[in-house]
């Protein structure tokens, strides 16, 4: 059952072949067995999960079940969930039990899904390897000496290791797609504004977007049906009609125009990754797609632009963590300024502090125009590149990450090397576009390779169709690590 798709699982639940309690229990046991190795979860509350499962079973018995009713879903620890410790991977929130539900959490609750636990993540979603978590690094289930990617590394590892049926992630510069690629699963970052950010702890507000992570595109479509939708509590949430993201899954791909940006296929991409991507493009041609060479000339600036804008917003977003009202407060201090300084110095990890300092610097008087404003201008140019490109193609494809999963500690000393692992994903966030990653083979050391699919605004249904058709023709997505 743990290898089944959400559709199959839902059908089995509704047919009473298995109860939600049994299914939840199965996952909890598997977590108990494997989590000590993988460290994918920060918080588990088995009794609470089982209680939800019992309620789901009643709903299943009453015949009022929805697609996700009774299905155990893991939640990234960035989402506030009432009664749950919500740490965001930080010592700063080591004691923060949320008194309210994020929009995403309440959507899953309404659907009758089970909250199986809160997954590990880079501290405040700042990282690409899950090594910045206060709760220790997550291990890649394909090779526990390697990173799972980040920041949604706990979610990616949990899905890959079948510790949950599916899970949520958030993506500010690639935090869904890169770990999905490195762990061999599927992940989708929707168009900015499709999923409400209410209750999702902010990293960089203009870039953050929640999305589903699962084992295949069809699962992602079901999850997105639950997560997406207008929420008046988020002013950047978009007021659009409710969509059924499964509606186009089975459309043939004949005539699909795939844009291949030359900048994504230049220096920097590992040859093993290139080989897998080429093969995947070949598969798409067999499915009836045509390939168009395109250019995203400004995308090379996306990493520097991102590392101005994201830290700028983060430096302000993280100001509320001051030790005054909740969260970590230093035990000893002499006065107010000392309390602030010690609480923040002790409560935040090195990467978070680095980004707060960068962000504070670029917003400072005398530097604002040269950094922040300039970066905003380039951000618009990057978005325009995509608009131009979509005149010639329907979707854009390329690698999700330049390499497969690297070893734990390998890039820890060099933040810039770490930042470059998001080189293909960041432009998508800057433009606010939807992007996804699906498994498309294995590279060096038999580690998974992810194919990135970038759609035009609100083209999630088409992207899911494009991914699903590939997954009908290949079986990369159903490979599971041996644990």
């Amino acid at each position, binding site marked *: 059952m743990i290898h089944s798709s959400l559709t199959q699982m839902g059908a089995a639940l509704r047919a009473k072949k298995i109860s939600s309690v049994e299914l939840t229990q199965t996952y909890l046991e598997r977590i108990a067995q494997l989590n000590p190795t993988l460290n994918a979860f920060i918080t588990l509350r088995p009794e609470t999960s089982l209680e939800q499962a019992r309620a789901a079973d009643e709903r299943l018995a009453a015949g009022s079940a929805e697609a996700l009713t009774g299905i155990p879903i893991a939640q990234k620890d960035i989402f506030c969930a009432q009664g749950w410790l919500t740490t965001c991977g930080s010592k700063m929130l080591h004691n923060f039990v949320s008194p309210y539900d*994020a929009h995403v959490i309440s959507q899953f609750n309404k659907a009758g899904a089970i909250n199986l636990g809160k997954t590990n993540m880079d501290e405040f979603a700042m990282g690409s390897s899950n090594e910045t978590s206060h709760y220790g690094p997550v291990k890649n289930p394909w090779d526990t000496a390697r990173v799972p990617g980040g920041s949604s590394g706990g979610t990616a590892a949990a899905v890959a290791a079948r510790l949950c049926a599916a899970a949520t992630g958030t993506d500010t510069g690639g935090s869904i797609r890169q770990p999905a690629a490195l762990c061999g699963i599927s992940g989708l970052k929707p168009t900015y504004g499709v999923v409400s950010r209410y209750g999702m702890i902010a990293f960089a507000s203009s870039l953050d977007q929640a999305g589903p992570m699962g084992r295949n595109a069809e699962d992602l479509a079901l999850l997105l049906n639950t997560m997406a939708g207008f929420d008046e509590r988020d002013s950047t949430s978009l007021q659009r009609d409710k969509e059924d993201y499964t509606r186009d899954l089975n459309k043939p791909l004949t005539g699909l125009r795939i844009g291949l940006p030359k900048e994504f296929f230049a220096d920097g991409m590992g040859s093993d990754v290139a080989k897998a991507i080429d093969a995947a493009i070949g598969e798409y041609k067999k499915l009836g797609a045509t390939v168009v060479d395109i250019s995203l000339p400004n995308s090379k600036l996306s990493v520097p632009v991102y590392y101005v804008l994201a830290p700028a917003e983060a430096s302000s977003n993280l100001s509320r963590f001051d030790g005054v009202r909740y969260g970590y407060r230093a035990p000893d201090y002499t006065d107010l300024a000392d309390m602030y300084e010690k609480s923040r110095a002790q409560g935040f990890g090195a990467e978070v502090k680095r980004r707060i300092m960068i962000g504070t610097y670029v*917003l400072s008087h005398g530097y604002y125009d040269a950094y922040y404003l300039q970066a905003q201008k380039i951000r618009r140019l990057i978005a325009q590149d995509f608009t131009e490109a979509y005149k010639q193609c329907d979707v854009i494809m390329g690698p999700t990450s330049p390499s497969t999963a690297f070893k734990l500690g390998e890039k820890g000393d060099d933040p810039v090397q770490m930042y470059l692992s998001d080189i293909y994903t960041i432009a998508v966030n800057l433009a606010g576009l939807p992007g996804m990653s699906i498994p498309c083979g294995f590279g060096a050391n038999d580690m998974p390779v992810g194919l990135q699919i970038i759609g035009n605004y609100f083209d999630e249904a088409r992207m899911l169709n494009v991914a699903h058709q590939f997954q009908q023709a290949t079986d990369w997505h159903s490979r599971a690590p041996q644990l």
Partner: protein
Amino acid sequence: MQWEIVIGLEVHTQLSTSTKIFSGASTAFGAEPNTQADAVSIALPGVLPVLNKGAVERAIKFGLATGSHIANRSVFARKNYFYPDLPKGYQISQFDLPVVGQGALTIQVEPLSGNAKPYEKTVRITRAHLEEDAGKSVHGDSQGVTGIDLNRAGTPLLEIVSEPDMSSAAEAVAYAKALHTLVRWIGICDGNMQEGSFRCDVNVSVRKPGQPLGTRREIKNLNSFKFMQQAIDYEVQWQIDTIENGGKVHQATILFNPDTGETRAMRSKEDAHDYRYFPDPDLLPLEISNEWIEQVRSTLPELPQAKQARYVNDLGLSAYDASILTSSREMADFFETALNPSSILPLSGEEAVRSSPDKGRLGGVEAKLCANWIIGEVSAQLNRDGLDMTQCPITAQQLGGMLARIADGTISNSGAKEVFRTMWAEGGEADAIIEAKGLKQVSDSGAIEALVDEIIAGNADKVAEYRSGKDKLFGFFVGLAMKASKGKANPAQLNDILKKKLEG
């Protein structure tokens, strides 16, 4: 040596919305600490601001009332600094693109000293922007702990910034008062200064005429007009003394201590914050369509300045009276209602006294008479009893009823004063009081003639003196006649008859 004073104001007006600017929490004053602090007010992780449309509408109203430019697109920005009563570590405000742009407010200035005459002045408004208030720190707990009350955090404010157009404490106070009147007039702020609904920061500098602007110091958080005047006077003198003694004024933020009447520096420019303003990514730019502006315009009441002009031009009042009557909307409403009370019943046979509306009259009552009573008796009594216009024990209808009886000759001025005193103390309508107290004037010429004849007959010697040229005795006869009529004779009629008979 002459010094020129340069003053500009930044006024924080608390907007009268029932909920906060970015959340649904209540803005009511005086609740138990933190009972009006919702998830947004305490800045829990993950919460987001949602703009209150009512706050925007109030900003638009202000812009319209001051003829200011209203931006079709303005932007909320974050002002970053750490303080325990600022839960997010930043204040959401507006920076380079405010909702209200340049405008102006015309004020009546009453000089504080000498016999200088009141004059009119126009103060330019630089901008007005929306922002959220902070909470407050509560010091002095028994354990030496500072408490934080976040009830006020997120309360909507409109910060109104003027140009440095004022050149005396009197002008600054007049501007602040005019602004205070205006924001209450258009219903965007309750103006309660004790509760902090209207707080003024005053920028003061001095210079020699013709010289560039001097260095300014900012007096923060003045919440009374009296303190504002005292603070400015003290600060101006301090700056002049400092410079004349060879010192230099340094830019600083200062506080006024009402107990000592002195100002003192809070922080200098050296430790001024770098607020790192940037557009708030949680809020979209504020788009205001012209349709929205027009819709708000249709809800605006007649503004004080328009009323003043109308009172002067159509009702023939002096500019001074007009400005007092428009010092609050309650006052103006009282005046207009008293001027045209709808419930007065005409006295039989005497309708002719009441002319049709013309210049000086709105309804049955003469505007000047009405103005005099409100500015005189009514205001004096309110003052004496420590009441404001809304608490006036006499309704405008009641006053109007009484004024109509003065106008139609039913009662004399002295009779009216008695009616007024009774009304104030016991209530009741003028007609009933006149009846009960027998205050009706005698306007029956036959009765007055009989009375005058009797006096002339009984004072032959004085009549002779009068007739031989001692005009001053006229008053003596009036006094006798009034006494004889027990004060009820219509004075004008009495004068006429007396004059005729004495000459005759």
